[in-house]
């Protein structure tokens, strides 16, 4: 690597070495979820409801049980709330169990109702046809606004929590309201007020690897689980609860993970495999089909939103208000609160009010998807800002700069910002050649800002030194995008040994303390912080060993360039002792040297980005091409800049899909109509341009090296930036996603 890739303050951090798992992944030997097998293994398959909403009158599994190839059949009766081990589940565990296996009612098309384990995958699928389920079909609802209407079918009585005001439909299960100032007074001060409504459809994370697992559980309550997951401790905890066993008796190993983006932060098939295994007393593997992934995992929420913003002629925002209604399937959890809190977060506002609703409908239980809730709100808010700029003749970057939040700003959602990098991203946008490049006829340009909180979360890391001076680091956050490389860089930086001499392993649940999921853009931040602190813990001991060998106090030794050295002239005159020299003798000088760290880091540091997009619209067909795309985002400190760029590019690409073509399409019968990649249209290589990136670095005061998470913010601005580009190209404001060609062509026709 060229020397100019290195930052002056760091030796290893900021360089771009090859990832440690690269060889395994280019040769096909990396083991993902479905790549496992075991002696005696059975194959599981799950029977799913074809109805959006139906009472399960009767399930007859006798024919399946009698089949020679079938070794176990399970229904809800085989899970913990119905068995003797540990009766009674409540809260989110109950929700997950109800989602994993239906009890009285099937709540959406694809809801699991029974499962079999058989001697082959084909035999298991065939055996599903032998299970007879009698349904009483009930009225259903899949649209968020219809689900809130007075006559909507009730998904489940009593699901709402204390936050919901009286008089709301029982499908409204959580309510959020926040803000400050007086929005009515603010609107009165404005020269122009725009109020409009927006809608987005549910999308899927679209990871290419379907969920897959292998579970083994005995009647003694001891088990093993292998699965593709963003967090194996949450899988351990949840499966144990659902199966009625003790958490520590279930060891969970995370496979290599073929994409998650939030969708693999919970369990779907894992408890089923374990329940089947317990009954068959053999390991059971379950692999979802793509259609099952779309129908029965956790897509994001769909949204219906009303935005009102007032602006003065000089671009000052005088007041902003947003109402965000999010549908998250047949369970509580749609991130209406997140949408509300993020929507206006980039701006320094005197008067702001936001309301969020969490609404249930007959769809699969939503899961997190990359900055969950934030992209929809940004789409609505930044569209209105763009329209205000257009109508007042103002530059959209200047207006955002004028109103941008900075250190000391009281955020729209309450707290006061520490050092943040929004202004720097906007200034970089303004200076970027893309922003001033000429547009061709038929093209439009859009920009948008975006915000995400970022997250810390419970974190454990253990680091052990070997006699030869190499180091092994055990982390508990599955590597979803190159994090083993980042961890090794940070450990190398502290230990002062080469990157290549450090092996980072994603440990199983039996060999490390609890770790929260790889989500919330937390891995490089929290596992990174823990790795740094674990390495420093080891360095303290290295210094102590050197001090002992020199016969000086431990605090008279410091660590420099991978060596223990006297801390100053007064400490004595000793030759530096390299790490390998100390570890070579560690057995005789006090035993193994390890470092560890366990805590819940709280200083994740919020993150902002600004995107610039050019789009071209075919006026005769409504087809959109993205002709140029630039992502500018604050990374705090980029540990491995190439993988930071990768996160930016990936977020933008997913945003392009969401904006233009991706959507869950339900028929009048409540069934999902596009449960394969042919019709759930994620961007393909020929759809996209190269995606330019600018890494802004405004260090996060909450991380030793200044890291801010980068994984999620990149999907917040694209929906709005693309909508603004398309609207400016087409000459008509697009208020509904996806902006599919039929929608654009219809809008063009309506516009004359």
């Amino acid at each position, binding site marked *: 690597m060229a020397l100019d890739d290195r930052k002056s303050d760091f030796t290893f951090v900021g360089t771009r070495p090859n990832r440690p798992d690269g060889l395994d992944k280019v040769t096909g030997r990396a083991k993902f979820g479905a790549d496992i097998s075991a002696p005696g293994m059975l194959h599981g398959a799950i029977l799913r409801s074809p109805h959006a909403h139906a009472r399960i009158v009767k399930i007859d599994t006798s024919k399946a049980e009698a089949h020679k190839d079938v070794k176990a059949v399970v229904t809800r009766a085989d899970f913990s709330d119905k068995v003797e081990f540990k009766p009674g589940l409540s809260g989110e565990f109950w929700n997950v169990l109800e989602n994993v296996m239906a009890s009285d009612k099937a709540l959406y098309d694809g809801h699991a109702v029974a499962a079999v384990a058989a001697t082959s995958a084909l035999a298991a699928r065939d055996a599903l046809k032998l299970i007879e389920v009698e349904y009483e079909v009930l009225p259903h609802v899949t649209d968020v606004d219809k689900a809130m209407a007075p006559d909507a079918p009730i998904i489940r009585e009593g699901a709402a929590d204390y936050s919901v005001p009286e008089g709301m439909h029982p499908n409204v299960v959580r309510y959020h309201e926040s803000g400050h100032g007086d929005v009515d007074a603010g609107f009165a001060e404005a020269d122009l007020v725009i109020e409009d409504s927006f809608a987005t459809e549910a999308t899927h994370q679209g990871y290419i*690897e379907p969920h897959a697992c292998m579970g083994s559980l005995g009647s003694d309550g001891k088990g093993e689980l292998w699965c593709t997951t963003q967090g194996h401790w949450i899988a351990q905890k949840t499966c144990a609860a659902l199966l009625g066993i003790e958490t520590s008796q279930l060891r969970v190993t995370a496979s290599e993970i*073929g994409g998650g983006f939030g969708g693999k932060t919970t369990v779907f098939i894992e408890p089923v495999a374990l329940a089947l295994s317990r009954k068959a007393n053999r390991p059971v593997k379950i692999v979802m089909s*793509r259609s099952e992934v779309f129908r029965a995992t956790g897509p994001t929420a769909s949204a219906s939103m009303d935005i009102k913003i007032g602006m003065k002629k000089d671009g000052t925002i005088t007041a902003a208000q947003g109402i965000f209604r999010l549908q998250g399937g047949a369970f509580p959890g749609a991130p209406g609160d997140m949408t509300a809190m993020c929507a206006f977060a980039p701006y320094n506002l005197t008067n702001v009010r936001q309301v969020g609703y969490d609404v249930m409908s007959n769809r699969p239980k939503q899961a997190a998807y990359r900055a969950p809730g934030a992209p929809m709100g940004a789409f609505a808010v930044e569209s209105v800002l763009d329209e205000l700029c257009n109508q007042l003749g103002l530059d959209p970057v200047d207006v955002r700069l004028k109103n941008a939040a900075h250190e000391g700003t009281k955020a729209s959602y309450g707290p006061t910002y520490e050092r943040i990098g929004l202004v720097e991203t906007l200034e970089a946008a303004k200076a970027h050649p893309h922003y001033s490049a000429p547009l061709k006829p038929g093209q439009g340009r859009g920009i948008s800002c975006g915000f995400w909180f970022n997250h810390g979360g419970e974190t454990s890391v253990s680091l052990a030194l070997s006699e030869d001076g190499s180091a092994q680091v055990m982390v508990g956050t599955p590597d*979803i995008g190159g994090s083993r490389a980042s961890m090794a860089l940070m450990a190398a930086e502290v230990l002062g040994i080469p990157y290549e001499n450090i092996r980072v392993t994603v440990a199983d649940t039996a060999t490390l303390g609890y770790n929260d999921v790889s989500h919330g853009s937390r891995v490089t931040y929290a596992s990174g912080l823990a790795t740094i602190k674990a390495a420093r813990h080891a360095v303290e001991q290295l210094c102590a060993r050197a001090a002992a060998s020199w016969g000086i106090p431990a605090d008279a030794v410091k660590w420099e360039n991978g060596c223990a050295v006297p801390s100053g002239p007064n400490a004595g005159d000793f030759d530096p002792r390299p790490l390998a020299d100390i570890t070579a003798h560690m057995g005789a000088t006090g035993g193994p040297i390890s470092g560890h760290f366990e805590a819940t880091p709280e200083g994740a540091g919020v993150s902002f980005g600004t995107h610039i997009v050019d789009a071209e619209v075919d006026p005769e067909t409504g087809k959109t091409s993205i002709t140029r795309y630039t992502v500018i985002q604050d990374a705090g400190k980029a540990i491995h800049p190439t*993988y930071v760029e990768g996160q930016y590019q990936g977020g933008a690409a997913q945003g392009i899909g969401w904006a233009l073509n991706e959507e869950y399409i339900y028929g009048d019968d409540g069934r999902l109509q596009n449960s394969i990649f042919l019709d759930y249209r994620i*961007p393909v290589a*020929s759809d*996209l341009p190269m995606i330019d990136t600018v890494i802004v670095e405004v260090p996060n005061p909450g991380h030793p090296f200044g890291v801010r998470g980068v994984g999620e913010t990149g999907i917040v601005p694209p929906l709005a930036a693309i909508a603004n580009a398309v609207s400016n190209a087409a000459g008509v404001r697009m208020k509904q996603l996806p902006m599919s060609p039929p929608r654009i062509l219809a809008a063009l026709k309506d516009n004359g």
Partner: protein
Amino acid sequence: MSKLHVSTTVNGDTVEYLCDPRETLLDCLRDKLNLTGAKEGCGTGDCGACSVTVDGRLVCSCLMLGVEAEGKQIETVEGIADGDILHPLQKKMIEYAALQCGICTPGVLVAAKSLLEKNPNPTEEETRYWLAGNLCRCTGYDKIIRAVMDTAAEMREAS
């Protein structure tokens, strides 16, 4: 019905297996030959993660039956490296960070190798269209396309 016996060649090795006629070539590679490099991302030919070549022709192994492999020459991701020497594409994929999760990588490599064998000097557009059947959800394709085109340039120089 009873299983069918198939004799075929995978990465130069003669192999045999018994399969149900409903099982795909992908099922047979993964479950019978333990070659799990090819992945099933969709089962409908839409994602390309299961890409292999059959008699030199790039195909989705999920859209071919195991019985159809009789007498064919099949190449998978496991056969791309020559012993401990990686193919230039494999090296460039790592160097460019053209993979994040890596699930699409085997299919991308098989497809890209097939492209370069047919067209040693592809344009960006040709590369993007050739790889349109290989879905990647992580990278936005940028680094994949750059890695393939840079490999092509390097292989042209070397030859």
